[in-house]
């Protein structure tokens, strides 16, 4: 670029600077957007923060009529459904990733087709998951999973209460299905990034396929897989529509999975446009602020883990 100075066409240098300025402005816009998001949410929830203070987070009552607002039922619902989703979705996702990277090495087409199908799960809009959950999954779970569990294991608090189908359990299952493509796609890239020497060394001492995976691959990929898991958790925590349609929408803290509940995102979706009072809206915005910080923390942590993994393997994840 230094040559431009002698080429007699100095405007070229200006062109370079102009391009850089324009595209840098776009990059700055992204940072500003996130900062503005945090700022506006904070301002919007000030009414609620001033009135309820820190106890808002621990408050168990959500009573719009008497204007008593506490966030705990929603935080509980978000944690419970996301936890359930990880419990079910994680082993399946890792299984899919292991299948695609380790079992299908010689069958590229099969791996490609199955990989594509799993990715398509991510392309289905969440409102359609909700519709399907409401009309198809919920009745099936109620009749063939929840009812038997309650009948035989009803003495366990987890399975107490009358199975209704629209509850934490159904929401957790829907979320599990929805995070599978996220976790399995990232995990697949991570397993692909594991150097072959890890595999060859294990095979050379006579290990079985499983032993190679268990002792040669998974330990090496641990921090990356953890990152993928956290990324899946972030998706489950932020998911709105599908959960709203199947969780029953009642602000309740219950040990039973068969109880209706609410999550941070679903209460916002469900009550925001119907909230008449300023303090009510402000309380909902504060729930959004909580969701903002939880999602921020989760995503920053996940990115950090993935970044560490890509530095280790020299592959961008």
């Amino acid at each position, binding site marked *: 670029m230094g040559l431009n100075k002698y080429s007699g066409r100095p405007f070229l240098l200006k062109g370079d600077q102009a391009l850089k300025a324009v595209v840098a402005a776009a990059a700055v816009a992204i940072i500003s957007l996130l900062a503005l998001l945090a700022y506006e949410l904070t301002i919007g929830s000030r009414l609620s923060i001033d009135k309820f203070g820190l106890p808002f987070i621990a408050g168990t009552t959500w009573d719009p009529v008497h204007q008593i607002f506490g966030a705990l039922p929603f935080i509980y619902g978000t944690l419970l459904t996301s936890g359930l989703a990880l419990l079910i979705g994680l082993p399946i996702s890792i299984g899919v990733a292991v299948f695609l990277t380790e079992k299908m090495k010689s069958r590229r087409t099969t791996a490609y087709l199955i990989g594509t199908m799993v990715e398509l799960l991510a392309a289905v809009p969440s*409102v359609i998951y909700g519709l399907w959950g409401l009309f198809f999954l919920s009745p099936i779970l109620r009749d063939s999973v929840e009812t038997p569990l309650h009948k035989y294991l009803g003495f366990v608090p987890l399975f107490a209460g009358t199975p209704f189908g629209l509850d934490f359990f159904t929401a957790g299952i829907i979320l599990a299905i929805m995070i599978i493509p996220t976790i399995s796609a990232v995990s697949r890239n991570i397993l692909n990034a594991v150097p072959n020497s890890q595999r060859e060394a294990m095979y050379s001492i006579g290990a079985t396929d499983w032993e190679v995976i268990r002792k040669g691959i998974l330990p090496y990929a641990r921090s990356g897989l953890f990152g993928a898991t956290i990324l899946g958790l972030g998706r489950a*925590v932020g998911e709105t529509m599908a959960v709203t349609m199947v969780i029953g929408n009642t602000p309740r803290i219950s040990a039973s999975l068969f109880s209706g509940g609410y999550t941070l995102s679903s209460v916002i979706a469900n009550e925001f446009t119907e909230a008449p009072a300023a303090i009510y809206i402000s309380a909902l915005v504060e729930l959004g602020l909580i969701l903002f910080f939880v999602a921020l923390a989760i995503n920053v942590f996940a990115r950090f883990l993935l970044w560490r993994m890509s530095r280790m393997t020299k592959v961008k994840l």
Partner: protein
Amino acid sequence: MTTTSQSIAGRRRFTNQAMTALVYLAVALALTPLLLILGEVVVRGAPVLSLSFFTNLPTPVGVPGGGIANAILGTFIMVGIGSLIAIPIGVGAGVFFSEWPESRLSFLSSFMNDVLAEFPSIVIGIFVYIVIVLATHTFSALAGAVALSIIMIPIVARTTEESLKLVPRSLREASMALGVSRWKTVLRVVISTGKAGLFTGILLAVARAAGETAPLILTALGNTFYAKNLLEPTAAMPLLIYVYGISPFADWQAKAWGAALVLVFIMLALNLLVKLTVGRRFANVRAEN
């Protein structure tokens, strides 16, 4: 399994086979919901489809013959305007990330971009509600479009960055060696070589935005008629699916399935188009978003 030899103890072989079976089971469990969802959407949605379903306005409960024309139009308008906002910012940021990767701004912004890509869309809805709906005193297509654009930007930015990084260094060097300035090299050589990737990113962003519901509840709200301008509550397909789906009326529920079929068809078409044009290169980007 080719490496299993006679010497392997039965227990180890059994564990190996059991784990292999579990891995196959995991794949079956992951694929079953996709087939069930697609099957259910087709079976319940297909009987509803007719020409009038695409051309008529919704009718009140019990009045036969209603359609979803306003929702289809609303989705097109909001995704269209959303794209007009998101594409310049997304492509610009993507060019910056790929051409000036060492700068501190690039690192910070690309990190924020990754965070934004995974952000709960309902939070974006609240943000746009505060910034635009409260300011204009109305739910509107404009607010909906802005919300969708915020969802699209990170997808466009990341696919742009990745596709431009795939452009061989030798092409840039050849261009620069001929005395072409850097900005012309970027615009004429790099972007033009990577444009298939850019196009993919835009398609993926459009597909994602067209299916978004949560932010639209707080911004576009929905409408049973055509919106007369951009500053009126506006219908959208995902909104209609949500409202009709949770309604107690069989007629509306059936229409929700019909709209779901249309939406799923659009999604699959866009995603398959992406697959066919660019292949597997950007597969991971879609899945992560």
